[in-house]
């Protein structure tokens, strides 16, 4: 298989040149992704705010957008019904009836931005502009008492918010095992 030999030779050359630890064999399938293509799909936002787009939004704008596009599922003030409750439940995580909301449970504000941008509203995902997502995020954080009413959020200020349950998560990977062993 001359093609395979050529691929193997290429792989060796690649290892020698750049030292990728996992490259074993290459087939030269696929094509380079252009920066523009990556930018169009690279929509995730990391906990430290990496990936947050330019733009800004405030609580007041967020209230209007929420009323128009979110309240029919999440309640006028994020109280839930018919879909998830987004507001309240602070201090209930040890209770038998724990209320897991954006305010009481979510560990990162960046995740809120990430999820709203990629998946909300359910009937029109990825339709909100960055400014609108900043605004809705600001409004939800305000409803949860995490930011003040006059807050304007952008990439810098959103990433700096420390959520109340920031330290409430423990990773079970890899040391704890998947589940407590009875």
């Amino acid at each position: 298989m001359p093609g395979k030999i050529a691929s193997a030779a290429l792989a060796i050359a690649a290892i020698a040149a750049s030292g990728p630890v996992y490259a074993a064999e290459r087939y030269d399938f696929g094509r380079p992704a252009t920066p523009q293509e990556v930018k169009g799909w690279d929509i995730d936002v990391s906990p430290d705010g990496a990936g947050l787009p330019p733009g800004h939004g405030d609580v007041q704008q967020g209230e209007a957008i929420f009323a128009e596009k979110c309240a029919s599922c999440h309640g006028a003030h994020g109280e839930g019904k018919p879909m998830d409750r987004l507001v309240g439940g602070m201090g209930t995580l040890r209770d038998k009836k724990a209320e897991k909301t954006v305010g009481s449970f979510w560990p990162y504000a960046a995740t809120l931005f990430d999820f709203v941008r990629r998946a909300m509203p359910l009937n029109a995902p990825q339709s909100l502009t960055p400014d609108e997502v900043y605004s809705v995020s600001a409004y939800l954080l305000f409803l949860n008492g995490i930011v003040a009413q006059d807050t304007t959020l952008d990439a810098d200020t959103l990433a700096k918010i420390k959520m109340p349950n920031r330290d409430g998560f423990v990773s079970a990977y890899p040391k704890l095992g998947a589940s407590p062993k009875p």
Partner: protein
Amino acid sequence: MIPRTPKSKEPSPIAAERQDGDARLITRRSLFGASASAAAAAIVSPGLAQEGDNLPPSVPEWQLHPGDETLSLPYGRPSKFEANVVRRYRQGLPEPPTRLSSFSLTPLQDLCGIITPNGLHYERHHAGVPTIDPSEHRLMVHGLVERPLIFTMEDVTRFPSVSRIHFLECSGNTQNWGAPKPELTAQDTHGLLSCCEWTGVPLATVLAEAGVKPEAKWMLAEGADAAAMTRSIPIEKALDDALLAYAQNGERLRPEQGYPLRLLLPGYEGNTNVKWLRRLKLGVEPFQTREETSKYSMLMPDGTARQFNLVMEAKSVITFPSGGQRLGAPGFYEISGIAWSGAGKVARVEVSSDGGSSWRDAALQEPAMSKCLTRFRAPWDWDGSPSTLASRVTDETGYVQPTREALLKVRDVRSYYHYNAIQTWSVAAGGAVTNAG
């Protein structure tokens, strides 16, 4: 029962053709179209459908005329008499406000062996099932790689492929935290579980193509559905036995299972096996997506939440006799069920007919494969008295499936996910089988 003989004196069309000595005509569509069966039935079978007519010593009605033509169904389907073997929602649980984000359950009590037919594989979607043209589907691999790449489906299927049989289980499967609801069936309690032969390319092969940088420790997998569902996967798993799967049970993926491409992470909780896979991004830290923080994390009694509960623990369930079924007369029955572990192979399954006071080994159907359902069977002479059936699996790591009481000592309903305790079914004196939790 009176033996029935055809009363018509008219010869059937088939008999006439045979007398003409031209057997080839029998299959000619011009003579025998869609109505041939009905016509034949009308001619040769007057006065059918009396009780017992199809039983010995009578010749059954379906032998007295030709059946459906070859290729009546270009894609076949089960007998109409199996119409009750379908996916459905959980009994007694109010459906969510929209089926765009919902689930359906595999009818485990009606299946044999270990393979789930594709049309019965459980579903869990977060924003509906997208309709994706494979010619326009792309997989992007980027982040901490030497070469950000885009693959077409033609590219993906050109790589060396493998086929493996693995179970998939939603980590929300089995909600027996509270008082058991007697009416629940195995479909209700354990139906977020299926098992298929998956064909695809090892993810490690595709990642090698892009060249993973040494500092990459986690990989974000993203779906092309309307939820753009994302999960973070440890690089160790991505380079171990992960597959980019494009086929299940011999045919291309069903749309509900991620057509045209999904991530398949053997033994990992179902949600991480991202469907409609469009993007893999290599990074240093977990991405802390909504699905691995606010969902699919386990709230513990102390108020902390355990996330990245990735491996599905060893678990088993008896599918016969199971909830909703009814035994007949006392005597011999074969207890049958399935066992599995996300950590490897099933090593042993024990069954009990006295609620766990005593146990005996069940026979395992070979081969017992890693991260795959294993069918177990045990003979049982039912004496007709009330009995409580249970099964308990031990996997090859030595992990033993816990009792419900043991599980409830360390976790409760707040943790929701990863309920893997021993399942018990009650058999009443009359033979009715109900869920005992």
